[in-house]
C-alpha cells in the first residue's frame, strides 16, 4: 500500500532530509538543537542510573524543574491549539492561514511535555496500567492525564484531516480537540488549585489563569513559528494575520496583568499566614519582576501599544523574551506553591526553625528540561520536511 495516498507527505532520502539552506542561522540552529538533544540524553542517562537522587527535589519540595517544564510544554500545546482554532473552528478570517503549522506545533509540544514528565513520574508504565485499572476519579492528575491523552488523539486526527484537505472532519476533530484540550488544561490548573493544604495555590485562580496564559503562550509561539518560516520577509496575507495577532495579544496581556494585580491584592490583603507572606515574597522576587513581568508581559505589551500592533518584526523578537517570561511563570508557579513549609516546627537538634522551603535545580534537571527544547525543534524540523505546512490560498474553508 502506498502510504502517501493515505497521508500525503514528501518523500526524502537521508541526504535530501538534511538538505536545508546552509545559512549561518540555519546551521547555528541545527547544531544548537543537536547540542540540546545531546544534553537531554546525557541527563536521562544520569537519571536512569541515579533515579530521583539526581534531582534537587526533596521531601518538602517534591516537584521541581521538570514539572515546571512539563507545564511549560503542555501550556504551549493548548495555547497553539486555542489560537489556531480561532481560524478554522471559529472562522475568524485573519487566523485562517494558521491551521496546520499550529496544530503540528501543538502535537510536538505536548509530545515533548510527555517526554519530560516521563522522567519525573517514578513509574510511567505503571501509571498507564493503573490509570485504567483503578482510576482515581477525585484526582485532578487523573483527569488531566486522561484528558490530555484524548486531546492528543483528537489533534492528531485533526492534523491528519487538515493534511488531507478534508475540512469537514478537520473541523469536527478541531472542535473536539479544543474542548477536550480546554478541559485538560484547566484540570492542570486544578492540580494546583485543589491543594487545600496550600492557601497560596488553592482556589479558582489557576484553572482560569492557565487558559489565559496558554493563549498568550500560543500567540508568542505563532510569532516565533511564522518569523522563522518567512525569515522576517512576510507576504501580505501573513502580515495582515500578524498585525491582528499582535492586537489580540495586546488585549490578552492586558487581561493577564489585570488578573495578576487582583491575584496579588487578594492574596496579600489581610496577611493570612502561608498566603500573604508568600505572595509578598513572590511579587518582590527577581523571578517575578524581571522574568514574569518585564520579559513575559511588559516588553511585548509596550511594543504592541506603541506600534498599535504594527511592529510585527519587533514582536517576533519580543516573543523570545515573552517565552523566557513564560518559563519563569511556570517555574514560579511550581516553586511558589511549595514555599511554605507544612511542618512549621523545628524537628532536629542544632537546626533553625524552618523558614521558606528552598530548592535549587541540579545540572541533571537543567539538562533534561532545556534539552527538551531541542527535541521540540528537531521534531518541528522533521514535520516541516515531511509535510506541507503552509496554508494553500486555493483551499476553501
Amino acid at each position, binding site marked *: 500500500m502506498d502510504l502517501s495516498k493515505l497521508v500525503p507527505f514528501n518523500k526524502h532520502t537521508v541526504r535530501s532530509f538534511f538538505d536545508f539552506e546552509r545559512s549561518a542561522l540555519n546551521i547555528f540552529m541545527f547544531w544548537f538543537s543537536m547540542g540540546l538533544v545531546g544534553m537531554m540524553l546525557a541527563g536521562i542517562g544520569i537519571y536512569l542510573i541515579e533515579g530521583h537522587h539526581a534531582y534537587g527535589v526533596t*521531601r518538602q519540595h*517534591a*516537584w521541581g524543574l521538570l514539572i515546571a517544564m512539563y507545564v511549560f510544554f503542555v501550556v504551549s500545546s493548548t495555547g497553539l491549539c486555542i489560537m489556531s482554532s480561532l481560524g478554522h473552528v471559529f472562522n475568524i478570517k485573519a487566523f485562517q492561514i494558521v491551521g496546520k503549522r499550529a496544530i503540528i506545533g501543538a502535537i510536538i509540544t505536548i509530545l515533548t511535555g510527555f517526554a519530560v514528565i516521563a522522567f519525573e*513520574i*517514578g513509574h510511567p508504565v505503571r*501509571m498507564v496500567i493503573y490509570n485504567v485499572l483503578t482510576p*482515581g476519579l477525585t*484526582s485532578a492528575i487523573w483527569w488531566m492525564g486522561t484528558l490530555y491523552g484524548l486531546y492528543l488523539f483528537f489533534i492528531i486526527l485533526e492534523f491528519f484531516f487538515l493534511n488531507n484537505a478534508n475540512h469537514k472532519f478537520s473541523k469536527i476533530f478541531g472542535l473536539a480537540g479544543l474542548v477536550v484540550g480546554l478541559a485538560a488544561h484547566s484540570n492542570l490548573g486544578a492540580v494546583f488549585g485543589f*491543594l487545600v493544604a496550600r492557601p497560596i495555590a488553592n482556589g479558582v485562580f489557576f484553572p482560569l489563569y492557565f487558559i489565559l496564559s496558554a493563549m498568550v503562550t500560543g500567540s508568542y509561539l505563532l510569532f516565533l513559528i511564522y518569523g522563522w518560516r518567512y525569515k522576517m520577509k512576510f507576504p501580505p496575507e501573513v502580515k495582515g494575520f500578524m498585525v491582528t495577532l499582535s492586537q489580540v495579544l495586546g488585549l490578552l496581556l492586558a487581561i493577564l496583568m489585570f488578573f495578576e494585580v487582583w491575584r496579588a491584592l487578594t492574596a496579600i490583603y489581610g496577611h493570612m499566614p502561608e498566603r500573604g507572606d508568600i505572595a509578598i515574597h513572590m511579587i518582590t522576587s527577581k523571578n517575578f519582576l524581571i522574568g514574569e513581568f518585564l520579559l513575559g508581559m511588559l516588553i511585548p505589551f509596550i511594543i504592541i501599544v506603541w506600534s498599535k500592533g504594527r511592529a510585527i518584526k519587533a514582536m517576533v523578537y519580543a516573543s523570545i523574551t515573552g517565552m523566557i517570561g513564560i518559563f519563569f511563570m511556570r517555574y514560579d508557579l511550581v516553586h511558589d506553591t511549595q514555599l511554605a513549609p507544612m511542618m512549621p516546627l523545628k524537628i532536629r537538634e542544632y537546626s533553625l526553625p524552618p523558614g521558606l522551603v528552598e530548592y535549587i535545580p541540579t545540572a541533571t534537571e537543567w539538562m533534561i528540561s532545556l534539552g527538551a527544547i531541542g527535541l521540540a525543534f528537531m521534531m518541528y524540523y522533521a514535520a516541516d520536511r515531511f509535510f506541507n505546512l503552509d496554508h494553500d490560498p486555493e483551499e476553501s474553508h
Partner: protein
Amino acid sequence: MARYGMALDYKSCINCKACESACKEENGILLGADNHRIWVGVNEIEGLFPDLSIGSSNFQPSQCQQCDNAPCQSVCPTNATYYDDNGVVRVNPDQCILCTYCMQACPYDARYIDDRTVTVDKCNFCSDTRLIHGETTTACQATCPTKVRIFGDLDDPESEISQTLRDREHYSLKAHLGTKPKLFYLT
C-alpha cells in the same frame, strides 16, 4: 472493624526521640534526614532573658494524622492510597506511580519517598508489623518512657483513648482544613 487513633499527652514529652528510633527500627526505615515517618517538633522558648516564657517551650510529637477525610487519598490518581478496614490511610506500593501529588496535598508533611520500594510511604500505625498480628500497640507508643501516646480504637467507647478523649480537652492540627485528623493533642 476498628477505627484506630492516637491521643498525645504532648506536655509530658521529653524529646528523647525513643519513638523515632523505635519507628525506624520497627519499619526498617532507611537512614537520611528526609526518611522519617514520625518526628518530634520543638517549640523554642520565647522571649528575652529574663522575661522568658517557660510555657512556650514544649515538644510536639507528630506523624501522619490518619485523616478521616484525607487529601492525600483524594488526589491519588491510581488509588494507591486507600483507607484500610481499620480506618488507617495506607499506600499500596504496587499501585503507586511516584507522582508525589500526595506529598503536595498532605497538609502535615507526613509522607516521604521510600528508596527500597521507590514509592511514597508514611506512618501506617504499624499495620504490617503489629495490627495484622492482632496486637493493638504501635512501636512509638510501646516505647515511650513518659506515656505520651495513647493508642486505641475510637469506635470502642470503653477503650482508653475514647475515655481519655471524653475526659480531657484536646485539639487537632490544622483542623480548619476539614481533614478530620485521628491524632489528638491533649491539653
